[in-house]
């Protein structure tokens, strides 16, 4: 058995063993927490984006964006003018190294409030605004708070409306997708439902979680929807589902904010294993928030309570998570 992805441990690392399930071949290894020359950066509930092209990770915290290199050390910082542009809600890095930052711009005397997508170059110099254009009149008030760049498309999501807008890389509206279509019309969990997390894979499938449903969903590009998971506190079950990620193979990682766990499912949505609730002190997660998959199977997990951003290496015999 050869692991295509097995990163060397940096600093303290611990091998987290799988559960008894014979499918649990995935290995998860704690690597480190994002740091600077003063030590671990005590982040709490921040926004993340992993730039797989350049093996870097971006952290957005209010009005500051920091860039960390492949070994988790801070290498750059720049400021997002939150007073003018709003606080950082999400960010993506493009192949060119340019960065898009999503925020909510408050109304000013000469301009109404709304979604603000600010374009920065790799140095953090503001390059202008990317305008989400062509929205149908009925969703002119669409205010996204998540942004994903996948397959040359920009996906914007409003977690409170469970609505996704797909746009070209220059911001031109292409289509809207109502994710609540995945929930039966008479399901009481539709009422007040919001997204706990959302991701898109290379094939255009949308993965999302609805905390009040205690379930996760995969919406394929043909519009069909599959759900998985059920409430519980045992391994493999959901407490409060949050962030969700899909790798290039279709394997899925779901963060559980109640159980302090990250659950891994295979492409058939079968539970493989989880980590986070127990283990060595540094491996234990505290309310996993935003997650990002970086180059070489690195998983970045934002946490609450100033626990910072933990980085894990995830590897499987056939490079399940990569």
């Amino acid at each position, binding site marked *: 058995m050869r692991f295509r992805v097995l990163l060397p441990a940096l600093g303290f690392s611990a091998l987290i063993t799988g559960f008894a399930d014979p499918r649990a071949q995935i290995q998860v290894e704690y690597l480190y927490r994002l740091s600077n020359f003063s030590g671990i950066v005590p982040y*709490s*509930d*921040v*926004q993340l984006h992993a730039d797989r092209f350049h093996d870097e990770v971006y952290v*957005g*915290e*209010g*009005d500051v964006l920091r860039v960390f290199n492949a070994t988790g050390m801070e290498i750059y910082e720049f400021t997002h003018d*939150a*007073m003018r542009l709003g*606080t*950082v809600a*999400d960010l993506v890095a493009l192949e060119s190294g340019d960065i898009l930052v999503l925020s*909510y711009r*408050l*109304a000013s005397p000469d301009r109404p409030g709304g*979604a603000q997508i600010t374009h920065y170059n790799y140095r953090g110099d503001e390059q202008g605004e990317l305008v989400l254009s062509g929205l*149908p009149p*009925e*969703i002119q008030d669409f*205010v996204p*708070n*998540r942004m994903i760049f996948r397959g040359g498309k920009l996906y914007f999501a409003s*977690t*409170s*409306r*469970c609505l996704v807008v797909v746009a070209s890389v220059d911001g031109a509206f292409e*289509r*809207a*997708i*109502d994710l609540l*279509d995945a929930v039966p019309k008479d399901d*009481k*969990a*539709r*009422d*007040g*439902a*919001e997204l706990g997390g959302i991701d898109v894979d290379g094939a255009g499938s949308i993965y999302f979680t609805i*905390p*009040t449903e*205690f379930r996760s969903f995969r919406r394929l590009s043909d519009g069909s929807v599959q759900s998985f998971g059920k*409430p519980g*506190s*045992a391994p493999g*079950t*959901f*407490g*409060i589902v949050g962030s969700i990620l899909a790798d290039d193979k279709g394997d899925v990682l779901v963060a559980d*904010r*109640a*159980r*302090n766990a990250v659950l891994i499912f295979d492409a058939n949505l079968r539970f493989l294993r989880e980590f986070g*609730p*127990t283990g060595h002190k540094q491996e234990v997660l*505290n*309310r996993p928030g*935003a997650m990002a998959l970086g180059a070489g199977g690195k998983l970045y997990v934002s946490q*609450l*309570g100033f626990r910072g951003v933990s980085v894990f290496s995830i590897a499987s015999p056939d490079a399940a998570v990569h």
Partner: protein
Amino acid sequence: MKTIRFALMLTVAALAVIGLSPAYAFHSGGVAECTGCHSMHAPASHPLLAKGDPSSTCLNCHEHAGDTGPSSYHISTAPVDMPNGIAPKQRTPGGDFGWVKKTYGYLLRGTATTDPGQSHGHNIVAVDFGYVADPDNTTAPGGTMTSTDLACTSCHDPHSSTRRLSDGTIVSPTKAQGTQYAPIMGAGSYGLVPPAGLAAGVYRILGGSTYTPFTGGTNFPGVPSAVTPATYNKSEAVNQVRTAYGYSATGGYTSWGQWCATCHGDMHTNSGYVHPVEQGLGATIAGNYNAYLKTGDLTGTTANSFNSLVPFAENTSDIATLAGHAQNNDSQLGGPTANDGVMCLSCHRAHASAWTFSLRWNGENEFLTLANTAGVSVYPSYDAVGNTPDGKTLLSQNQVFKGYSQAEMLAAYYDRPATKFAPYQRQLCNKCHIQD
């Protein structure tokens, strides 16, 4: 092209339906899914709570980093979303707890002054989320409850079994063996009237007569009545969100004042010479309320005088009546009658606000707004541009804005533009007392 257009129409139609959906999932008026709060195998605190304390367990869902604005059932803004100059983002009627983390320093008439965050509301203890006990008050103002005990669960009963029956009466089952009681079918905050044999929850699963807010305290005397619109967490830049508060002291209900007095007894009329609650406004005060729109404008009528910065308690607990008034589209702006009453929530927000003592407006200065050189009402702020008509810079009027940015001033008044007020708007006490 026709197919695309049709698909778009379907999407839009679906969105229109969603927009009308009420928000009452998860708690559903009573005890929610157990595993949303409890962890059987990896609890963080007693009793098998998923997070470090009761309030942190609540905020696990009710605070969400990355919100861009008011969002569904969120009642707290994460610190990363409100750096200096940026206000908390939620606009629920109860207010955003994030304000208790916002401390301001400013020069007041030449003296360095601090507006401490802890003065802005209820200092719940939610350690995982950075909320700590009130450092100034060791006990509840007007009461004996220790500040370190204050939690969301002091007011809200997470296992609420208190229910409103089909005839409108409130019961709090003892859950004694051998008893029977109507099952709760859904949330009691949005106007649900259950059929016979079933029940709705009570407003905001507030503690009822079998619930004690803190160890050693007394039970609540009943539950107060209210109905709020399904979409209650929203900006009031254009339309107001009207929560229709009610009043009854029978049928299992208690007044808002008596309910709050469970912890703040000495603040209540019964215990001293304080602002009255629990009594009808009377014709004079009700008439004032209905006439007063803003400073210098007494042209209001009984049909258009409601102001969500000064709500009142209607003299009824009839859910259908209250539900008819609980709107977020300015379709119900009727003012009070002489029999309606003032309550604690007429002046205070239940969670927190931008202002000291969780007041709905700045109670520490005679003016809420100023004017620019054109005489138009404006909020001063440290980043304001321009002067007042008498030549003072707007950014120097600290006594009005207390160190806030323009964005924070707007947020403090739920995004109302200053022009909703008069230039040199006086305190909203005048809504009832017209002294300006």
